[in-house]
């Protein structure tokens, strides 16, 4: 590798780090992302300048196809579908890592001629890359609702099976490390790791999916760093490690926001599978009060403060613009409107912020959970739009609930609650929500977008 290439790599990873620093604040984020992207271009150019490169046509074909596939999907994806898009992009990254390590194996005579660090790093890449690829595909399938969102698993036997799969993959890897050269060995590792990725993600309930995507993101980062070690490529090492580290932090933050440990999430089975769902509510008065758009409008119009609690239902109904319109009318009537965003509302942390930002809701009106929870007590009406689990008081009061202990928005403390919901179906986590049966709660059934638009019309005519 020439000095020029090395220097360009240093410039590139400097740009990654600087760009990432920008991503931590809303004002600098766009520029930060562009700087990181420019860093990637520098790294790409540097790589093409490595002496002795050949197979140009194939490289060009690969990059061209990748661009043709990547650009339109990134351009067209709805903001609601961002979580599965990220899962997919993450998965292909992991897949690339696994493929590269595979070729290194079949191309040389196994890893025989390679130094030990190369062997260890490559085997790590094969296993983690393959887990990440298949795990991400399953996560994509679940979020895209090609696969059922509820946990699919074997219950108790699941952890044991996963353990066996991991152990088997590691054993084969050790055989390769000890000098095994049969290609079947590495294919075995790939297949076992693939099965592990599938088996780990399948039993995980939809509510935990954001954490899983973040974890797989961290995994892909680490496997990229390992590939960088094997290929003696500093840009890959640095980029992979910062992603690995930041992914780990994000995963941790999210798990904390849900009061769940990462191992418990990976063990799966949340929201179904063995847990008695909502059983403690039996026998209590379970009548639901439903309301009309006209009544809801009157309730809202005479409030001093309204807090909107958006959830994934708002995203599905594409209701963010309608919500913004309604808020505008309310503000015109002197009602103060705020938005309470739970850290894991939607299917990705910060997902609601993206959607509301898309609808031009001012950044200052979006409140994080800790900042707004004290305000529910002096709020006249809380409007829950397609959110469920993050408002479930059972998380505070019912030790039998699977989400017990998860920090929630204290919606039930406001004077009145209007819940916009499609039907009485339980949330993504599959848990019943006592909030809906509360005396001060009224339900406005129907598509969130249509309901909000109807309320807005009623408001205008008041």
């Amino acid at each position, binding site marked *: 590798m020439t000095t020029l290439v090395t220097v360009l790599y240093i410039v590139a990873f400097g740009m990654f780090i600087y760009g990432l620093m920008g991503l931590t604040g809303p004002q600098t984020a766009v520029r930060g992302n562009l700087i990181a992207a420019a860093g990637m271009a520098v790294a790409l150019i540097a790589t093409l300048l490595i002496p002795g490169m050949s197979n140009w046509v194939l490289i060009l074909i690969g990059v061209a196809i990748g661009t043709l596939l990547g650009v339109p999907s990134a351009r067209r994806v709805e903001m609601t579908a961002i979580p599965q898009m990220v899962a997919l992009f993450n998965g292909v990254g992991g897949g690339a890592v696994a493929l590269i390590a595979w070729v290194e194996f079949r191309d040389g005579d196994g890893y025989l001629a390679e130094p030990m660090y190369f062997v260890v790093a490559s085997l790590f890449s094969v296993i983690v890359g393959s887990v990440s690829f298949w795990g991400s595909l399953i996560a994509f399938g679940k979020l895209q609702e090609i696969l059922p969102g509820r946990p699919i698993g074997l219950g108790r036997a699941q952890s044991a099976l996963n353990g066996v799969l991991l152990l088997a993959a590691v054993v084969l890897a050790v055989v390769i490390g000890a000098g095994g050269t049969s290609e079947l060995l590495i294919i075995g590792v790939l297949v076992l790791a693939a099965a592990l990725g599938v088996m780990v993600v399948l039993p995980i309930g939809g509510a935990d999916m954001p954490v899983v995507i973040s974890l797989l993101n961290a995994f892909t980062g680490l496997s990229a760093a390992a590939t960088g070690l094997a290929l003696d490529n500093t840009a890959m090492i640095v980029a992979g490690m910062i992603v690995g580290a930041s992914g780990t932090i994000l995963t941790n933050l999210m798990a904390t926001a849900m009061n769940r440990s990462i191992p418990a999430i990976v063990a799966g089975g949340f929201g179904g599978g063995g847990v008695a769902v909502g059983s403690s509510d039996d026998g209590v008065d379970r009548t639901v009060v439903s309301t009309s758009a006209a009544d809801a409008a009157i309730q809202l119009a005479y409030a001093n403060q309204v807090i909107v609690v958006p959830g994934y239902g708002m995203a599905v109904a594409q209701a963010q613009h309608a919500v913004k319109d309604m808020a505008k009318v309310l503000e015109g009537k002197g009602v103060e409107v705020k938005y309470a965003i739970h*850290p894991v509302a939607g299917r990705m942390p910060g997902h609601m*912020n993206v959607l509301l930002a898309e609808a031009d809701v001012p950044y200052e009106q979006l409140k*994080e959970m800790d900042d707004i929870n004290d305000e529910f007590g002096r709020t006249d009406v809380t409007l829950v739009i397609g959110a469920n689990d993050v408002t479930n008081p059972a998380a505070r009061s019912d030790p039998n609930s699977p989400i017990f202990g998860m920090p929630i928005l204290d919606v039930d403390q406001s004077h009145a609650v209007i819940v916009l919901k499609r039907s009485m179906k339980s949330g993504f986590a599959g848990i019943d929500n006592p909030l809906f049966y509360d005396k001060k709660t009224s339900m406005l059934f129907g598509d969130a977008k249509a309901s909000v638009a109807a309320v807005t019309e009623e408001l205008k005519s008041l």
Partner: protein
Amino acid sequence: MDAGFLANLAILVLAGFVGFAVISKVPNTLHTPLMSGTNAIHGIVLLGGIIVLGLGGAELSPLSKVLLVIAIVFGTINVVGGFLVTDRMLGMFKGKRS
């Protein structure tokens, strides 16, 4: 031990700490774009595919070439798609400064 490897290992450890330091104070609001932005960065595995294919020359078997082209396709999707989607998302936050 290979001296180059040890130097790389040092870089790896330091980069890990840099990652921790940079990301530890991010508002929840930006978690989605941050995740998608870091996601794009690990698309750097694209370089791995290019290096192995480029330096492998004519000795690579046809299947190896196919696998590497797929790896490059995957890496490119990861990079290009990741940065574009992040840019689109962040564009929505921009201009919200009143």
